[in-house]
């Protein structure tokens, strides 16, 4: 592999990590409250509101049913509005975040729903309000699942970011297609695959370690 290709590889790694981390963080910041909103507004939830629940559910399902490559193109006007351009790494973060947020909201919803209803009742019996229940019960008790779900989301984002090459976002996927596939640079292809494997394994390993440390359920 030539020094130029090697430099390209390093830059691609950085771009992939940037896209994954930034959109991952955004999906966490918006997805977790969305997940909380989903379980709180459902029947028997702490802020039951079936109408809000249905609308939220429908919007989330809508975004999740659009294939990412379509979303990438369809969101170009939105991206331009937010970032100022529809091309490049930062531009890719917008559709990636918008795709990952509802995905993560559903994952967080599953973990939050698994919190024993008795614990919520105990907090209510102590005189806790909704905020207490969220802060002291729902989030801390679901934290291992929330972190494990975030790990899954990050790994999914590593894969999705490869498609973002279509709008010139760069990254490892883009490198693999343009150099490894279209120019028959087998060494680039192998290098990209190895880096991706290491990246995914690394994310998973850190996530698993964190979950193990957080899980006190014995």
């Amino acid at each position, binding site marked *: 592999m030539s020094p130029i290709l090697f430099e390209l590889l390093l830059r691609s790694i950085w771009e992939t990590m940037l896209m994954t981390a930034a959109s991952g963080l955004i999906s966490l910041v918006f997805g977790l409250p969305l997940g909380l909103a989903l379980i709180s507004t459902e029947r028997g939830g702490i802020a039951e509101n079936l109408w809000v629940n249905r609308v939220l559910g429908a919007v989330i399902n809508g975004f999740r049913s659009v294939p990412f490559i379509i979303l990438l193109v369809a969101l170009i006007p939105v991206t331009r509005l937010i970032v100022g351009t529809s091309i490049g790494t930062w531009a890719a973060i917008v559709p990636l975040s918008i795709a990952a947020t509802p995905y993560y909201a559903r994952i967080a919803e599953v973990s939050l729903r698994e919190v*024993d209803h*008795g614990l919520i009742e105990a907090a*209510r019996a102590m*005189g*806790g309000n909704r905020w207490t229940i969220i802060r002291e019960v729902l989030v*801390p*008790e679901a934290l291992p699942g929330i972190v494990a779900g975030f790990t899954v989301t990050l790994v999914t984002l590593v894969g999705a970011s490869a498609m973002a090459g279509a709008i010139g976002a760069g990254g490892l996927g883009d490198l693999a297609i343009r150099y490894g596939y279209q120019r028959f640079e087998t060494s680039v292809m192998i290098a990209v695959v190895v880096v991706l494997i290491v990246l995914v394994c690394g994310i998973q390993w850190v996530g698993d370690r964190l979950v193990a440390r957080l899980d*006190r359920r*014995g």
Partner: protein
Amino acid sequence: MNQHITASQEIAEPTRARSDAAQDVVRLVDVKRRFGATAALDGISLTVRKGEILGIIGRSGAGKSTLIRCLNGLERPDSGEVVIEGRDISRLSERDLQPLRRRIGMIFQHFNLLSAKTVEDNVALPLKIEGQPKAERLKRAAELLELVGLADKAKAYPASLSGGQKQRVGIARALAARPALLLSDEATSALDPETTRSILALLKDINRRLGLTILLITHEMEVIRSIANRVAVIDAGRIVEQGPVWSVFADPQSGITKSLLGTIRPQLPAELAERLLPGGGAQTILRVDVAGEAARRPLLSELSAAVPGPFRLVHGGIDHIQQEPVGTLFLCVPGEDATHLAGVIAFLDSRRARVEVLGHVADPV
């Protein structure tokens, strides 16, 4: 002896002195709650007096859980009044209920401890909700863990504790905010008999030392017997019987109470029960229930003095429930002479003992 109040006599209860009413921590007036077609609570009226331990017993599905959850507003009655310390809470909003719930501690069958918090943080949580500073919360948590005998587990997580220890933490947590009332929702149902005894002893000790009023629900008569002062029996959403525990044990009125008492009450030994014939036989077997004053008298010696002729004690004993003697004796009376038997029964009746002819046996036992 039939001092305790049955459903039909319940109307007479409000005649209690007015000054007493101020001592009521809880007063329920005709509380009703339906779930679809079934009435979970079908007109419950009940009072819990300051400092007492009231046990509510019933089979599963009798409405116990709904009842206890009405007391801290986790469940809202369709109609009726739920008066806690003089204030009707049945129409309060969730926000207004919150400060009130801090006056009421609750412990649960499955403990409901937060797995992500240490034992001390669990105990301190009600104080955190109240907005107390951290140092004070932890100081109070340490005091309470001392009280329940778990001072060394402050930094442990609930998952590392045994069931009994978890319930002790639950009790400490329920006491943290210095409640006026402790609700116990089947708190010992998930524990083994030995642990159950130690938890009940702890509750009784807390009741005595802190003067804390306790309302507990259970399906086990053993729990009622070991710590409650008064008992209310609930079935299909109604109170079918209530009164001092010793009196209900000695003279249960309803079929439900009798069946809940089941094996707790002395029974005729099986080998004797098998030989029992409905009519005619050389020996008659009597069941004699005595309680209170009647059980303090030298009943058997008085019987032999008053009614000459033989009788034999075949089984039985005197037990003490809340310092009141409650006894069941099984007597075997030779039946050749019908007037002798009639004399025995008449004498026991005159001494306020309840006598039941169980049957006859052919040969002497």
